[in-house]
């Protein structure tokens, strides 16, 4: 278990922030602060004099924290992007998981590792959830479009539901396209013509 560190987590989403804090708390009794307000972010981060700052790489406000890494006020503790540490494997894992970590100068690698490991695991989970959600959403949308296209074919050609779907599928195969794409084209065309 590593010694107490001050960690700042920049995260707007409350549930995600709680999940990260929980995961970090398991690695030691650290002081963990969550910042959700983008306004004046660099100053808020600096105020806590953190040892570690964790931020989602897709968060545009990352650039505000980067400022602390490039040129910090003499009174502030400089933080550096974790890549400075030449721990290539951990860096790569962090980037792939979508977390960027800024670490104060002079902090030992073995003290950071458990914290980063925990953060990486948590962010990987978020990423998986995001992918799942997007996949489900897309599947639902595609189904809706295919249903509408089926309806158009049924009405226009006087076909039953199964026949209509078979026709869509055959057209898609002939053209080397996905059924959903053919359906989308048909729906768009029929909207234009109606």
């Amino acid at each position, binding site marked *: 278990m590593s010694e107490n560190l001050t960690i700042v987590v920049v995260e707007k989403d409350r549930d995600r922030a709680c999940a990260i804090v929980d995961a970090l708390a398991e690695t030691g009794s650290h002081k963990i602060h969550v910042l959700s307000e*983008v*306004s*004046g972010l*660099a100053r808020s981060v600096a105020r806590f004099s953190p040892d570690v700052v964790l931020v989602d*790489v*897709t*968060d*545009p*406000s*990352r*650039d*505000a924290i*980067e*400022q602390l890494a*490039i*040129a910090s006020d003499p009174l502030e503790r400089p933080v*550096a*992007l974790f*890549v*400075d*540490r*030449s721990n290539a494997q951990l860096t*790569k894992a962090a*980037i792939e998981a979508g977390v*960027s970590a800024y670490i104060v100068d002079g902090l030992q690698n073995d003290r950071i590792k458990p914290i980063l490991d925990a953060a990486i695991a948590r962010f990987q989970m978020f990423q998986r959830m995001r992918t799942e959600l997007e996949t489900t959403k897309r599947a639902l949308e595609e189904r809706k479009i295919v249903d509408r296209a089926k309806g158009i074919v049924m009405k226009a050609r006087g076909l039953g539901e199964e026949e209509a779907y078979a026709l869509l599928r055959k057209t898609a195969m002939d053209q080397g396209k996905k059924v959903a794409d053919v359906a989308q084209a048909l729906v768009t065309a029929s909207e234009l013509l109606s």
Partner: protein
Amino acid sequence: MSLTPISAGFIPLVDAAPLIVAKELGFAEEEGLALSLVQAPSWSTLRDQLAFGHIQAAHMLSPVPVASHMGLMNGLPKLQVLSVLSMNGNVIGVSPTMAGLLEVRGYQFDFSDAKAAALAVASLPKPLRIGVPFLLSMHAELVSLWLNSVGLSAGTDFQIHAVPPPLMAQAIKNGDLDVFCVGEPWGSFTVDTADGTLILPGAAIWTAAPEKVLATRVDWSEQNEDTALRLIRALWRAGQWLDLPSKQLALAEVLARKDYVGVNSDLIDRALTGRLVVNGAGDTKHHENFLRFHNEGATFPWQSQAEWIADRLKARLGKTAQGENAEILGIFRSDLYRVALRQLGTPMPLTNSKIEGSLSAKTEVRAVSGSLSLGQNRFFDGQTFDPQR
């Protein structure tokens, strides 16, 4: 012929247009490249994606590759510049409160006189909180140069804060900033949604500021020189198309797409035409030289530009910024650029360096074959930068 896949990252800004046009109008494909574009959420993330090889090329702030050779990005691989993607294109604006104060003081809001604007801004309550997209940016350099000229010092008189371009309007709305300098369309967006007032185009401070560059990793272009050359040509052609007077309508529609800039095409048109709505009342100002992609030698990666940037970074960030001059010179790859464009018969300048700030008007100069015209290159206070000295 099978195409060489290459992915390039960009930030949603009007000046990402050369990459977008290279892909959408087929200039990349003509060069045998299957170009895919990736929108990045922030400059630091874009830089990291490039550094770790997730992408091979990027639409990048011109100071970032220079800074990567100056110890300002420890641990990250060094970057370099294959060509300049755009000149100028930023705006400087003020919050509604500051605009009110300037008006009371009789400021003319002429959107052209940088000296007068600096004096007016110097009369505002200090320290001024100034938002720029990234600490290592032409925005930060121009604003500092501009305010230093009227005796204001960074830290005590003004503080520079990094605010991501799409969040600039919100920062003005929240009252977090007094002044902002940002690339389009986000300045216009701030006018429309946060009652910001634009007071100057970036070009009023330096008429020939290399704004965004095409950046790659140094080792990538060494190992993929042929691909690098093709990329330079594809973007050169894209830039040429972009500076045709007839292109603007279609262009704004393409750039407006959600996966590119993602704002209404009307906002994008303002930067493309140089006709900007400068305040909430809808007053419009036109600036001839607002944003340039190609004409008058805009894309040549001059070594003197790298030196100017290095010089400014040293002055502004002090002891943290170091760099050997010989190494700085090689960051802007004028050599590769020449090789890439030789087969197109493009007139090339005789040298790789020029005195920045020394052309008071468009000038015809001798080239390697024939001649070429260079655009006006002037600082608002008449200073020049001679790299030989």
